[in-house]
């Protein structure tokens, strides 16, 4: 009887017969279509020369270059010589499956005017300032324009129309590059998305990356300078010009860097300070199903020093991104800035509003500013040109701020490598984030998950049949005494030729719940390797040990059907060297002398920056809501 039930459930659980997703564009069907879905890696957050900050840092790569790079071609990066030729080249060891250029919508037109000889306004003082003294110009101009309300009419005209007109060219170039590199053939080698970054700021950063499902996109990307630093304006415009425009346009927004948002990104109030309404919470839940848990400017999973030792991982110990440059900005992060805190807050808001606005799936990204998506290699990190460390004029001794990191990647379980398939996977949150390595992790949760599922050859088929995948809601429990089980399987990053990946150390299950209205969280060790591997910080050589594969069916020992909860898996690699250690070894820095290194390389001997780390992956949660 059980196989019959399981088979029936499989039919119901699997996507509709056929492709499993709705095709909204004209393209060939993929030859490698997998109804039970397959893993794809990508980076949906990268800036090119079209972003003012990237341009000011000497980046000259365009969206075309970014897509060339992520497909495995070599591209040049700053500094450039007197003839304008790049003095360094980079190449990804392994191409990614998908990518999205996400240039800032803010100042897209202004940057284009100042970069383009002959453009109306090109010779204005502000453009001369930006071209002749780019670092000084950027500090001044960014503080004015991004804050809004400044007098941009000198360049943009009184109504801003000159800059809006100028923004069309880069926006069209972004779309053209995405189209050129999108593989619409049956080979389905690579997928691009048209997108942009909306860079609003209130007390802290409230930035979002907007990703469009297909080539049907608004005439211009909404931006916070023209519309105000209020995410409601972004959502309104996305609805008016895309999701409800009747054009076939569809989009989702991915917030990032809650760690430096001062709590603004996960506030339980609207931007006016009023309590969230069910309508606003529902709108957010509809448009923002994901969060970027990790990236160049820090990890946002959880608060360090609160009992979970592994939370002390690439977290910035200060509330403001400027804290990396000055002690003046080093207040500790306020409550409510981490993803785990938001997930618990979402449970509470769901109790109040009937809607959980923070039902967030997980992705990772780089936020690189050199037009180089997927540049996550700790060993070969050259910086992301997004901080105060600039390679515009000279290769710096330490390639980036030691507080920052190379960033991560997004993993997606989708039927095929096409826009529609990936987009629907993103929307249903069947995604995971990694801190860089290509760890493949799969999670199913349910009430009748087979305890022996890890040994089954048809793990995925039975997982879908008896449970729900990451990102989904658990159904109602089948009866009293039931407790949810999670089946988690992780495969190590195999690495590239000559650069093997790191083995796995353990799988943890993170549970958050409400108990009498109070937030609770607990971390369970679900699976662990029998032989731990180590790394020697003196050489960065890794010992043998660790696992190639970990799998465990874990059952919640403390389940209370009256308490709303979420569960996600954290897969932890064996230790390896942090990028700073690799850079310090390459620079032959000695820390045991009387006179240690000075300048940027002093970070090599600063205990605030660890020499090793444990890279990881986080699945999207599954949620349980009492009926």
């Amino acid at each position, binding site marked *: 009887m059980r196989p019959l039930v399981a088979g029936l459930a499989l039919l119901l659980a699997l996507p509709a017969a056929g492709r499993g997703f709705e095709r909204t564009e004209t393209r060939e069907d993929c030859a490698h279509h997998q109804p039970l879905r397959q893993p794809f890696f990508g980076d949906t957050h990268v800036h090119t020369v079209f972003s003012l900050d990237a341009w000011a840092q000497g980046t000259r790569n365009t969206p075309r270059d970014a897509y060339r790079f992520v497909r495995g071609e070599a591209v040049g990066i700053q500094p450039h010589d007197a003839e304008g030729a790049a003095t360094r080249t980079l190449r990804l060891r392994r191409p990614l499956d998908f990518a999205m250029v996400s240039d800032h919508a803010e100042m897209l037109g202004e940057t284009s005017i100042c970069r383009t000889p002959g453009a109306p306004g090109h010779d204005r003082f502000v453009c001369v300032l930006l071209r002749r003294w780019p670092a000084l110009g950027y500090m001044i101009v960014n503080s004015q324009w991004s*804050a809004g309300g400044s007098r941009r009419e000198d360049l943009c005209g009184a109504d801003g129309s000159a800059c809006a007109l100028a923004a069309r060219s880069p926006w069209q170039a972004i779309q053209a590059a995405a189209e050129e590199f999108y593989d619409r053939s049956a080979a389905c080698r690579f997928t691009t998305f048209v997108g942009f970054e909306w860079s609003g700021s209130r007390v802290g950063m409230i930035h979002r990356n907007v990703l469009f499902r297909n080539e049907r996109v608004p005439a211009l990307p909404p931006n916070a300078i023209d519309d105000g630093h209020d995410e409601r304006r972004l959502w309104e415009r996305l609805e008016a010009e895309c999701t409800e425009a009747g054009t076939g346009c569809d989009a989702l927004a991915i917030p990032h860097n809650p760690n430096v948002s001062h709590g603004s990104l996960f506030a339980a109030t609207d931007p006016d300070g009023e309590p969230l309404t069910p309508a606003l919470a529902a709108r957010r839940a509809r448009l923002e199903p994901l969060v970027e848990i990790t990236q160049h400017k820090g990890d946002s999973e959880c608060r360090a020093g609160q009992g979970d030792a592994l939370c002390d991982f690439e977290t910035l110990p200060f509330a403001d991104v400027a804290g990396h440059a000055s002690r003046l900005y080093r207040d500790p992060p306020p409550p409510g800035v981490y993803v785990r805190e938001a997930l618990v807050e979402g449970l509470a808001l769901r109790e109040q509003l009937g809607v959980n606005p923070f039902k967030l799936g997980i992705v990772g990204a780089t936020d690189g500013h050199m037009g180089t998506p997927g540049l996550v290699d700790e060993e070969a990190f050259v910086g992301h040109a997004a901080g105060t460390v600039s390679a515009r004029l000279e290769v710096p001794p330490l390639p980036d701020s030691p507080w920052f990191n190379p960033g991560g990647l997004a993993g997606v379980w989708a039927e095929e490598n096409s826009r529609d398939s990936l987009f629907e996977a993103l929307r249903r949150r069947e995604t995971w984030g990694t801190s860089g390595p290509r760890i493949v992790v799969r999670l199913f949760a349910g009430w009748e998950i087979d305890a022996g599922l890890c040994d089954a050859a048809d793990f995925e088929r039975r997982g879908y049949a008896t449970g729900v995948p990451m990102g989904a809601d658990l159904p109602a429990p089948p009866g009293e005494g039931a407790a949810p089980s999670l089946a988690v399987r992780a495969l190590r990053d195999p690495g590239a030729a000559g650069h093997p990946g790191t083995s796995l150390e353990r799988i943890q299950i993170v549970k958050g719940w409400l108990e009498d209205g109070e937030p609770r969280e607990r971390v369970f060790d679900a699976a662990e390797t029998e032989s731990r591997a180590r790394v020697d910080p003196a050489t960065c050589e890794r010992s043998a040990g660790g696992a190639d594969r970990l799998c465990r069916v874990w059952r919640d020992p403390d389940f209370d059907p009256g308490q709303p909860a979420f569960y996600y898996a954290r897969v932890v690699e064996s230790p390896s060297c942090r990028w700073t250690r690799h850079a310090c070894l390459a620079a032959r820095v000695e820390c045991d002398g009387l006179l240690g290194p000075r300048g940027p390389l002093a970070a090599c001997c600063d205990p605030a920056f660890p020499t090793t780390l444990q890279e990881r992956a986080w699945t999207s949660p599954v949620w349980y809501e009492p009926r």
Partner: protein
Amino acid sequence: MGSKGRCYRYGVSDRRARWLLWTAGVLLAPLPYGMVVEGRVPVARFAWLAGVSAAYATGVDGSGVAWVMTAVLAGHALVWGALLWGVAFALARGLPAAARRLAVWGIIAVAGTAALVLEPYRTPFDAEALRAGWLGLFP
């Protein structure tokens, strides 16, 4: 003709030596940025950039950090200028009167040559090159 006149005829006065050395220091001495960025430029370059920032703040937009940057750069110019004045004062007084002319012009000649021939400056706000000789400071 008094003693000042003789001094002027055969050498340079304390005061003149002080002004010459200070002016040379303001134009030539590579001095570090104390905040914002790392670099080494003369006081005149700080003043020049403060002027650029002030001109932008006045003529285009004074919001944001335009005036803050003007103040920071002007502050660098003032502080380093004052310190150079002290150095020039001490140096001028310390030079023997008989050799003062030779010493002052010798210092200026050596410093000027070094500033032109070598690349003692680091100009982080520049668009094209981090290292610069004196001629690259004031395009």
